[in-house]
């Protein structure tokens, strides 16, 4: 009986030992984990390998070009409202000076082509615009936007090619800024072509007596498509400048970091590095 009791006691003790052991192991694991966290020895989280950014300048340029071509071809280039001897006239003129209603008004023709007979023949018109401008400027601006679209397509192709062929980031940025500067140039050209129409408002103010002599009173002239085109070209210029500046700033940052690293090493290891 005594032996049996001893055995039972031993078994109890063994159980207790087992429990203690397991408890110790648990504590050990916990302490290890804590220590790893505090020390930072744990397996480092995998670096977020940033995917190569797809430069969307090309797509933006294509969208802008398509939008502008739609504006050139579909929106009215001129809205005119004036009071004549026979009544008020309100007309919309599209590209190539086309009036969809087919109305013909002599007064409107006189604004753009001066019928001056007794005057000193200093000028053919009083507002700095001719009928030809309504056909030439849309044609030139549409050429400009077609080139912009081609630029965008070429840039997008290069970008796709770059992503497949693993170009360096530096070359990609240089190409980016070159295309942006080309877009800037086109934007300036388009803006200057359309700015003529804005110049009309200055002359309308200064040459008002001459225009009123033609039999036009209380004239209201709005060049819808040119104003929208100016806004679009302004947007192109701004986008191009921002893109160019962003690329330059990135390079500058790189240059700064390189230089700071060099200066640090020069301080530490000498200038002969």
């Amino acid at each position, binding site marked *: 009986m005594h032996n049996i009791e001893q055995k039972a006691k031993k078994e109890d003790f063994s159980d207790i030992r087992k429990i203690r052991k397991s*408890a*110790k192991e648990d*504590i*050990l694991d916990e*302490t*290890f984990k*804590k*220590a*790893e966290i*505090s*020390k930072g*020895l744990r397996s480092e989280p995998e670096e977020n*390998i940033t995917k190569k950014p797809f430069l969307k300048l090309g797509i933006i340029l294509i969208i802008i070009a398509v939008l502008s071509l739609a504006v050139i071809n579909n929106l009215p280039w001129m809205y005119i409202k004036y009071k004549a001897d026979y009544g008020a006239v309100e007309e919309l003129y599209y590209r190539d000076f086309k009036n969809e209603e087919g109305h013909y008004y002599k007064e409107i023709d006189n604004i753009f082509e001066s019928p*001056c007979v007794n*005057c*000193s*023949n*200093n*000028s*053919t*018109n*009083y507002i*700095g*615009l*001719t009928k030809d401008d309504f056909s030439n400027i849309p044609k030139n601006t549409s050429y400009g936007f077609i080139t912009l679209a081609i630029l965008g397509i070429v840039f997008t192709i290069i970008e796709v090619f770059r992503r497949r062929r*693993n170009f*360096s980031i*530096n*070359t990609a*940025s*240089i190409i980016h*800024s070159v295309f942006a*500067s080309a877009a*800037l*140039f086109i934007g*300036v050209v388009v*803006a*200057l072509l359309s*700015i*003529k129409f*804005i*110049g009309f408002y*200055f*002359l309308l*103010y*200064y*040459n008002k*007596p*001459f225009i009123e*002599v033609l039999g036009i009173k209380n004239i209201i002239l709005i060049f819808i498509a040119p104003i929208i085109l100016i806004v679009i070209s302004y947007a192109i210029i701004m986008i191009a*400048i921002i893109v*160019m500046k962003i*690329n*330059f700033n990135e*390079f*500058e940052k*790189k*240059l*700064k970091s390189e*230089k700071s690293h060099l200066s640090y090493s020069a301080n530490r290891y000498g200038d002969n590095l």
Partner: protein
Amino acid sequence: MKKVEKTKKAARLILLIIFLSIIGLILISLLPWISVTEDGLVKENLHFNFEMMQKSNNKQIKDLATDLIFINISFWVLTILGILSFIGVTIYASGKASRIGLILLVSGSATLIFSVLIVILNWIFIKTIKESNTISASAIIYTPINYAYIPLAFGILLLISSIRYTWVILPYSIQQLKSSTKEKKYAEKLVDNKKIKSEIITNKEKSAQEQTSLEPKIDEDRGEIEQWLTGEVQNIEKQAVKGRYLEPEKEKQIELEEITTPEQPFFEEEPLNIGEKKPEKSTQAKEKIFKEPYKKSKETPFMYYNNRLEPFSPEKKEEKIKGLDDVGLTHSFEEALSSAIQKRQTETNMKDIIKTEVKDIKDKSNVISKEDKVEKPMLKIQNEEMLQTKEEISSQINEKPMKKINVKCPQCKHITTIEKGEIITKIKCPNCGKEGVVK
């Protein structure tokens, strides 16, 4: 930091030039420039803008329009130059094709010429208007200021900025260009050296590849040698008790007559009873013996002379005595054996070390768990110690001999040499950054 400052300044000035020249262009086609008093039905001033001036029949007005055309062209040139020089700045800042960048930067200093031209032409334009009796400059509404002065002001601003640009950039870029030309010349001189270097590198790569192919064979040989050595060690241990080591067959032939003292070398005191035949001195026989150490003739006795089995000769007594130690083994042979044993023991020792270290750590942690009163910082310190030991163990494991292997990146196919231990190694491609594991 000179490069950073210069590029930053250059970029600012170029952007300013571009901005001013675009505004100048807009102003030219926007503003009314001149006014002419008409004597027709309306006796008032007729204002002309750039377009109207170009289409005018008046000769004086047309002459003024040509001035404006030149100003317009100059503004265009300034814009284009500004754009080009900005591209140059970005290229130069990128560090790629910096020579082209510098050339573009230098071309940007031509803005000075065109800005001067703009100012001069504007001045001439204003002067001719003033001199004329029929033509007058258009003035801003409710002010006596003429519109013609606005582009002049922009021209002056452009002139100032282009002067600053040329002052900042031109000497610096010329200096850089000169240094780059010098570098180019130096590089041309080094082309031949580079070719030689590339050849050397290719040869090295080839040899490294050959080495990698040879390594498994070497390992096999090493294993065989180690096996043989372990057998030898066991024999030596047995023979060491007797105080000498020889081949078992020859041992029977060579008999020691007497060993007077265990401390003194036995060769000096007592000559060995050698077999009847004298040892051959010819080199051919020696080579045969060396090549087949286990198939030795029963007639001739052999002894180890500096790691070599050679027929025994009494003339070489002294040499033998010097080479042998108390036990009767050569030092070099002993060293080889000890190194082999050490190699064998390293792995088992390492395992023991790890076990003992882990035990210690466990004990420490047990102590910590028992003593609940122990403060947290103390726990941290102990944990750090434990981790340090862990690191030491891992470093000891990692100290094992490393192999140099050429690895080809599956993504960019860039070949890199890495040092591979026995443990699985993680590698990162230096070219494209792809991560992988070499087993």
